[in-house]
């Protein structure tokens, strides 16, 4: 209920700003993400449900975007599309200049490994595998040599402040620490894009604050960050906030609070 209210208010404000934001954006920069007319339909014929009903989204390097919206608004579906975890029914998706909507499964695996760092709400670390090996894993799939992989993983874990937890299994880490391992895993591959699906959804407020600080740092270092959230506190850190509803983007605005 509260969320709906917020969205309703946002709706009024944002529709006004939409045109200005889009015109302000530099069209000559190669976007990290360019989604055109994305449609995701479940079911057939009359029973079909549109999770995405024609979404257009352009994100340029260095942006920090929060996607908000109520349950069923299609934000998670959009996120899964961007992360190449799911395929769209129609539309096109360019990731870092590559049209991934036309790639086969093997090429998609390469894109997932090289271009995207994905952070999940439920962390999704490999169980019974220590933090260092978890961070090394995507690099292992890319065929990066053991020594380089290890040094990069150690560096990534240092950045997230877990250099003293290298040999801990996920079950021996707190939620906040697990999520930071997941961030390290996403960062270590040096992706073009960091995608986070409700990264703070399972964390307490202290861990949430730490994680958001981490995202700020990552973005400040030039990395593009896109996250999904329910919480205004989280969205407020982003430089740009996109609201979705019923499979469509209903607002897309520069976040004044964050810019300040």
């Amino acid at each position: 209920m509260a969320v709906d209210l917020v969205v309703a208010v946002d709706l009024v404000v944002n529709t006004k700003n939409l045109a200005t934001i889009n015109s302000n954006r530099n069209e000559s920069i190669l976007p990290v993400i360019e989604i055109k007319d994305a449609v995701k339909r479940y079911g057939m014929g009359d029973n079909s449900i549109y999770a995405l009903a024609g979404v257009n989204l352009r994100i340029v390097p260095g942006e920090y975007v929060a996607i908000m919206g109520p349950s069923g608004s299609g934000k998670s579906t959009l996120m899964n599309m961007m992360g190449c975890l799911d395929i769209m029914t129609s539309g096109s998706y360019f990731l870092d200049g590559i049209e991934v909507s036309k790639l086969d499964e093997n090429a998609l695996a390469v894109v997932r490994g090289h271009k995207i760092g994905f952070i999940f709400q439920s962390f999704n670390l490999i169980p019974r595998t220590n933090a260092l090996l978890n961070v090394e894993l995507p690099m292992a799939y890319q065929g990066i040599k053991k020594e380089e992989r290890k040094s990069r993983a150690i560096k990534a874990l240092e950045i997230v402040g877990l250099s003293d937890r290298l040999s801990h299994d996920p079950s021996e880490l707190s939620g906040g620490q697990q999520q930071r391992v997941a961030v390290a895993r996403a960062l270590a591959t040096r992706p073009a894009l960091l995608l986070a699906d409700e990264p703070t959804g399972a964390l307490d407020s202290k861990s949430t604050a730490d994680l958001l600080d981490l995202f700020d740092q990552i973005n400040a270092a030039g990395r593009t960050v896109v996250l999904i959230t329910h919480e205004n506190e989280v969205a407020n850190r982003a430089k740009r906030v996109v609201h979705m509803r019923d499979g469509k983007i209903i607002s897309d605005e520069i976040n004044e609070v964050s810019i300040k």
Partner: protein
Amino acid sequence: MNFLEMFRFAFGGLSTNKTRTSLTTLGIAIGVASVIILIAVGNGSSLAIQKSIDRLGTNTITILGNRGGFGGGRAAAARAVSSQPLTIGDAVSLNDSIKAPDIKQAAPVVSTNVTCSNGANTSTPGTFDGTWPSWFEASNTSIKVGNFFSNDDVTNGHRVAVIGNTTATDLFPGQNPIGQTISCSGVKFTVIGLTNLKGSNGFQDGDSLVVAPITVVQRSITGFSNINSILVQAKSASVQNNAQTEINTIIDARHRIKNVNNRDYRTLNQASLLATSSSNSAVFTTLLGVVAAISLLVGGIGITNIMLVTVIERTREIGIRKAIGAPKRAILSQFIIEATFLSLFGGVIGVLGGFLGSHFTIVGVKPVVVPSSVLLAFGVSVLIGLFFGGYPASRAAALRPIEALRYE
């Protein structure tokens, strides 16, 4: 992503559930071990039969008349134009160094079934033969204690007998049988010799034996009718075929056989006995092998089952791996390596178990491991791992990351 890495992932998967891993391994191990042991038992028994047939001598030929003997002669007798029984005269004519240069000696044999006793102890020898002293050499029988009977015993009809070990134990438990008297079908014989152990030829106990002079057996028990068989010893195994031809020539002439397909006698040599018993034991071995193969197959199904469960249980993990960039073949190899390792490890344990189990005597047979059965069982177990593990693995690898991640 190198090979070593995939191995590490696979072992990680296996070590997560040690109980399940070891049970699956056990299934394959039992399959492999039973293939090896059962085939070894089959092989061992056929070797044992061959050995005892070898011990009987490979250069002997048995001539069987159509009356009596091993039976089965009636059909042949009906076909024969004039059927004549074997006689002592036939045996005498074979002991002819000019007409039959490849025959060392021939001994007529009268066989009967009687029960022998010594007081309260009784024994029914599997073989009760009346014959000539040359029988002992021809049949490869040697004396352990005492003596063979002599030509003089035959000529004069002395009531003496040579007995085998089984008969001796039956009639004289714990005693020296030499010089003692046994009563067979009411006729008293003095035991003058005890033969060395002959063992079983697979059909009967070669040590359940009483041999006496042919004259005594004919006079006292069977009557002076015909003889059952003639035991012929060729000069060596290599001239056995020549000896066979000479037998046919001499006996055909004596029995006036015009058509060789209508002979009124048959010859059996050790080579043909050997062939029969080998084919029998081959059937036996095949049956055992089939039973064992089924248990190996069941082990393989166990691997499929376990791999399916593993894949389902780890669907989420597969989703995570795919989401962070694991290519299809990496997932596929991980699970195939797991399955192959399970079967490989099970196979190795099974081979060890098979060799160990083959050291024990099983139902009276000393198993002899057939090397090809080891290779076969091991190879099949590994292939089973590959094929049966491949199906769940390809299912896992084909999952879309989002489907796998949503799986709970």
